[in-house]
């Protein structure tokens, strides 16, 4: 399976949401990392033929996906960011219906539905109405529906949003279990979701891929250094004003700051190896002092 994005562009009026992306993806897990509004959803919608690009093309094994039409969609499984469903349907009904519109034959659909319900841990809720499920269970139904046609291309848009830490970990394991023999593209703005599962990380900003590579490649090529500096309480504010700070750990006597900077920020600073979170902050973080989620 090979997807090629060739100068892919999508504009909404004047505004360019996806800006001339060139990218080749093969089997494996791709983590698409970007802040809100980076263009992740827009990109994924184009990959699912839900949106027509305003420029450029997408090729699947050399063929334009919009020309392939149903043949291409047959290869795709998609979990949308705002995943909606039919509230009165039971889990089983819903999966049977989606299998039908995916063109899965009824006998196969029944088998796969049962398999997937077990795999995502919904066996007890199989006959429950969808409107009665918790957020985490709904997401699992979402994953199951995306997997019904055994897709060669699996596209998951922020699958972990709104999940508690336990559910997130379970989800991560589930996804890495699903990744054999297929191309998985997973978007998130939570670094830990993909830090260890993704084969390749794509960092997206303002509609463009600003950096990509394996975890090591990304962390090794970070242009600035990461410093661990224990400082007394009263110096914290002067440092956070001048540098990007990726973490603040407060002890009883002193404060441990993780600072991203080209030069040594203070006397006591020790150079450490950067994590993906540091890289994320380096690319996407505002200059410290602005309010900004500590990830």
């Amino acid at each position, binding site marked *: 399976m090979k997807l090629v994005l060739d100068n892919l562009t999508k504009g909404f009026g004047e505004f360019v949401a996806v800006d001339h992306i060139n990218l080749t993806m093969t089997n494996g897990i791709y983590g698409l990392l970007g802040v809100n509004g980076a263009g992740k959803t827009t990109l994924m919608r184009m990959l699912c033929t839900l949106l027509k690009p305003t420029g450029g093309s997408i090729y699947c094994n050399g063929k334009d996906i919009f020309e392939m*039409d149903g043949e291409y969609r047959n290869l795709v499984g998609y979990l949308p960011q705002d995943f909606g*469903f039919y509230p009165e349907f039971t889990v089983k009904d819903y999966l049977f219906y989606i299998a039908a519109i995916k063109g899965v034959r009824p006998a196969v659909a029944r088998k796969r539905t049962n398999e997937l319900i077990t795999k995502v841990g919904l066996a007890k809720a199989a006959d429950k109405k969808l409107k009665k499920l918790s957020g985490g269970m709904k997401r699992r139904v979402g994953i199951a529906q995306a997997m019904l046609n055994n897709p060669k291309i699996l596209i998951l848009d922020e699958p972990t949003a709104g999940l508690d830490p336990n559910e997130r970990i379970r989800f991560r394991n589930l996804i890495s279990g699903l990744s054999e023999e297929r191309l998985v593209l997973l978007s998130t703005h939570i670094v830990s979701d993909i830090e260890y599962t993704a084969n390749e990380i794509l960092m997206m900003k303002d509609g463009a891929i600003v950096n990509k590579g394996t975890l090591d490649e990304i962390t090794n090529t970070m242009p600035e250094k990461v410093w661990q500096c224990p400082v007394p309480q009263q110096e914290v504010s002067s440092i956070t004003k001048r540098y990007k700070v990726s973490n603040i750990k407060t002890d009883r006597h002193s404060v441990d700051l993780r600072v991203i900077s080209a030069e040594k920020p203070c006397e006591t600073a020790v150079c450490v190896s950067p994590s993906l979170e540091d890289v994320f902050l380096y690319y996407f973080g505002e200059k410290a002092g602005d309010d900004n989620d500590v990830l």
Partner: protein
Amino acid sequence: MTYFELKKIFLKPVSRIVLTILAVSLCVVSYFAIGYVDYVDENGNNTIGIAAASALRDEKNKWAGYITDDVLRKVLQENALINNSKEYLSKDVTENNKAYSKKQGFSDIRDMINRAFGSFQSYNYYRADSVTQEEISSFYDRRTANLVEWLKSDEQENRYSEQEQQFLIAQYEKLKKPFYYEYADGWAALLEYAPSIIMLVVLTTGFLAAGIFSDEFQLKADSVFFSAKLGRDKAVAAKIKAGFIVVTSIYWITVVLYSGIILTVLGFGGAGCAIQNGFSNWKAFYNITYLQDYLLTVLGGYLGNLFILFLSMFASAKTHSKALAVSIPFILLFIPSFLSGISVLSEVLGLLPDQLLQVYTAVKTFNLYQIGDRVVGAVPIILTMYFILFCILLPLLYQVYRKTEIK
């Protein structure tokens, strides 16, 4: 797939409410339609229901047969006899009712005499009382004469072209005389309330049909739907099929129930009588029987249901708005009735889709249209026109929905 589409529609709580409302409406309308036929017994008491209808049928069918001059004369005699009875002349209402009880058998024929010997636009209930035995032989001629007089009157002068006037007169002349008469009140009542029940069906089915295409957007299930392999062809066709099944089944179940109830209670007789028999349709220029009128009404109603509801589905597929879809049937039904007072619009209003839901009323309306060198009434035009429009609407709906982009 169609099965699941239907499931989506009928599992919604609103569907159950809407179907309950429709069932209640059906009962209410049936009750009114049954009450349309009342029988006054020999004691002067007004009754309705199966027994009343059956008694009335017996009375009226004493006069069943061709309405020849002899029959008309006999009606005048009977009428005069009763008019001179002490019950009729009494000041007591119950006594008067007893007199009326005796007139019921020939009341339809008496109504026609009132119509024939009154003027085209007015009705005088006592006119028959003063028609003479000599005059009565002009009964059938009076029908056409009234029309001609009306066409020549000042207020109608420019309304119809010469050709249209000739058309109307020819239609009047073509009606087979003498009329064959028998009790047909079951059909008359059935038709009288058919437009109400048909309109209720459109409005209620509108709530079910509105969601078929727009719910995907409202529920945000659209991304999964349109990224599925068949989401842009067969799944769309399944929606159209589901819409068709919903509209068809709800319409025919309601209409068959309604017709069955009314005809069982009031009687099936008289299906072959011309609709001009009796009070309501005396002036109609469509020469059809009650059965034909019924078939036109229910088939027109079905076409109207299909057209209006698929138009509403089309609007919801295009705009993604369920509210718009629900309101389209209301707009199409109520706007024309607000405008109906404006007589210059009459010809345009006669061709709007709401007319399909009330073919029974359209049959009584004097709207004429010139197509080439032929003059036709509104009914054949709306039936043809909306059938064609409906056939165009289906592929348009399919195309619009399958090209949806998720933004």
